[in-house]
């Protein structure tokens, strides 16, 4: 105990001079407006945690709702710690082609955004890391062991996500290749979706989701009001996610273009997902429309700064279609993804990254004009390479990580726990305790 205390005291003291020195020397170099913008954008992105929590809880059964909420609360907490201690250093600690390696615990860390203090820039990046992590909780909901999830989540945000982040945004090999992913269709969503895919596949489908004949059998979400609230919150947060990725207000027009695109794409996604589902399945399904909104948002995340509003509408419309077909595809592949995280984040993330190479405009800041903008396929090639590399890394590293966890702690709860619900067995409570009658006393 005593030694621990001494060590802690040292750690507490160490950063002080570092920070103080920076404060004294650096203050004039900060831009107050840019700092405010990035900070508020980070707060908006943080709010997305609530959105994911409500969406995921709403789309699953009541008996597992507290479990998924607990995962959402805790994975952000662990993400904050992991990204503080290790993640930021790996992602932004220098120009190594593969990983960064300085600024552990933010000591002597530098901001990658001019004029924005490292603490604020860190926060903006930390909430992104949290988003990447939390995508997984949805796809493995209702069956993944809580303790194992915590371990996976911590390693993802502290070590895996930052590697990809370094490649694209931290000065790694992909940034050197003019790979363009403005706000993270690949870095956050396709990568998060890939983790989600591997995890959902390895943990297996929920009991009862696939019938004996192999066809899927729906397990309806227990609260669509919560799910809808979640999507609206996510949409709100996405303005911070995309527009905040400008990291500066020095170019109001780009900020504006990002904002309008972040409106039209999800609108298009909602419309196309709803209409396609209406034609194919007979009725306009609310959960599909919600996934369509998110698909549109994910799809526009990479190209939001470099495409015109009309293009963003088209991107959203295509993303909405991707979602509907993706949901179908997963069912055929016998993968059970209760909230649609894989089509929304994984597939639309890849599509959005490619969209830069299709609809991107050099005049708006894209490295090259896209395929439909008369620029040929070069940028599309770069985008494909980039997203394939990141997704590949995510798939492989997730597989290794999950395999290790499976062999040591196990991925899946007992069958009896799954039947009763994870809330009672893993957390000793019910999401709606006494809502029916009081079960105790």
């Amino acid at each position, binding site marked *: 105990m005593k030694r621990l205390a001494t060590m802690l005291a040292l750690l507490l003291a160490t950063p002080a001079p570092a920070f103080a020195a920076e404060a004294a020397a650096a203050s004039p170099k900060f831009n107050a407006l840019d700092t405010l913008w990035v900070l508020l954008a980070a707060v908006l992105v943080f709010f997305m945690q609530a959105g994911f929590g409500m969406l995921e809880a709403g789309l699953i059964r009541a008996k597992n709702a507290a479990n998924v909420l607990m995962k959402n609360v805790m994975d952000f907490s662990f993400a904050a710690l992991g990204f503080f201690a290790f993640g930021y250093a790996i992602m932004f600690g220098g120009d190594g082609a593969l990983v960064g390696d300085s600024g552990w615990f933010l000591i002597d860390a530098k901001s990658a955004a001019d004029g924005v203090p490292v603490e604020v820039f860190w926060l903006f990046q930390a909430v992104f890391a949290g988003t990447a992590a939390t995508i997984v909780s949805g796809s493995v909901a209702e069956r993944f062991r809580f303790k194992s999830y915590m371990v996976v989540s911590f390693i993802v945000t502290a070590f895996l996500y930052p590697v990809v982040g370094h490649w694209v945004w931290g000065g790694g090999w992909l940034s050197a290749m003019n790979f363009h992913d403005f706000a993270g269709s690949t870095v956050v969503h396709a990568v998060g979706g890939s983790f989600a895919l591997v995890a959902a596949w390895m943990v297996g489908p929920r009991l009862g989701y696939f019938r004996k004949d192999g*066809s899927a*059998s*729906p397990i309806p979400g227990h609260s669509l009001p919560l799910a809808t609230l979640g999507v609206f919150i996510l949409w709100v947060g996405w303005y911070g996610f995309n527009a905040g990725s400008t990291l500066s207000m020095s170019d109001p027009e780009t900020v504006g273009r990002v904002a309008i695109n972040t409106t039209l794409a999800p609108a298009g996604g909602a419309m196309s997902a709803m209409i396609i589902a209406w034609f194919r*399945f*007979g009725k306009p*399904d609310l*959960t*599909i429309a919600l996934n369509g909104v998110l698909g549109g948002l994910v799809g526009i995340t990479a190209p939001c700064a470099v495409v015109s509003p009309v293009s963003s509408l088209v991107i959203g419309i295509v993303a909405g279609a991707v979602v509907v077909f993706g949901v179908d595809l997963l*069912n055929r592949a016998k993968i059970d993804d209760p909230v*649609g995280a894989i089509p929304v984040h994984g597939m639309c993330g890849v599509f959005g990254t490619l969209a830069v190479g299709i609809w991107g405009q050099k005049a708006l800041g894209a490295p090259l004009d896209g395929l439909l903008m008369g620029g040929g396929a070069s940028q599309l090639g770069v985008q494909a390479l980039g997203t394939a590399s990141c997704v590949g890394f995510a798939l492989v590293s997730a597989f290794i990580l999950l395999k290790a966890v499976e062999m040591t702690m196990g991925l899946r709860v007992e069958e009896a726990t799954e039947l009763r619900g994870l809330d009672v067995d893993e957390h000793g409570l019910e999401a709606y305790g006494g809502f029916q009658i009081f079960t105790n006393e």
Partner: protein
Amino acid sequence: MKMVVAVVRPEQLPAIKDALFAVEVRQFTVTTALGTAPRAEQRMYRGIEQQVALHQRIRLELAVDDAALDTVLGALREGAQAQGGHGKVFISELADVMTLWDGKRGSDSL
């Protein structure tokens, strides 16, 4: 005494309640239930087929004097007709009734 259990659709409840009140039957117990329908409903949820076999139903429980049975059944029928006439009634013998307040037994306690 008889215990009458009627299982009807939720939208039928208001009219049935009125019909019962109209014949001065003012005491019964209601629970939400799920019931089977003549045929399962097909729905699509997120693009996959769902066979909905159980539907929202309302279960009414009425303890009645033998003499009042026909009146009650009539009221149930009348009330049910107002909304499609769906539903079934199950009648069984009731051995005894007790009021918890005074412990009184028998049909006076109904």
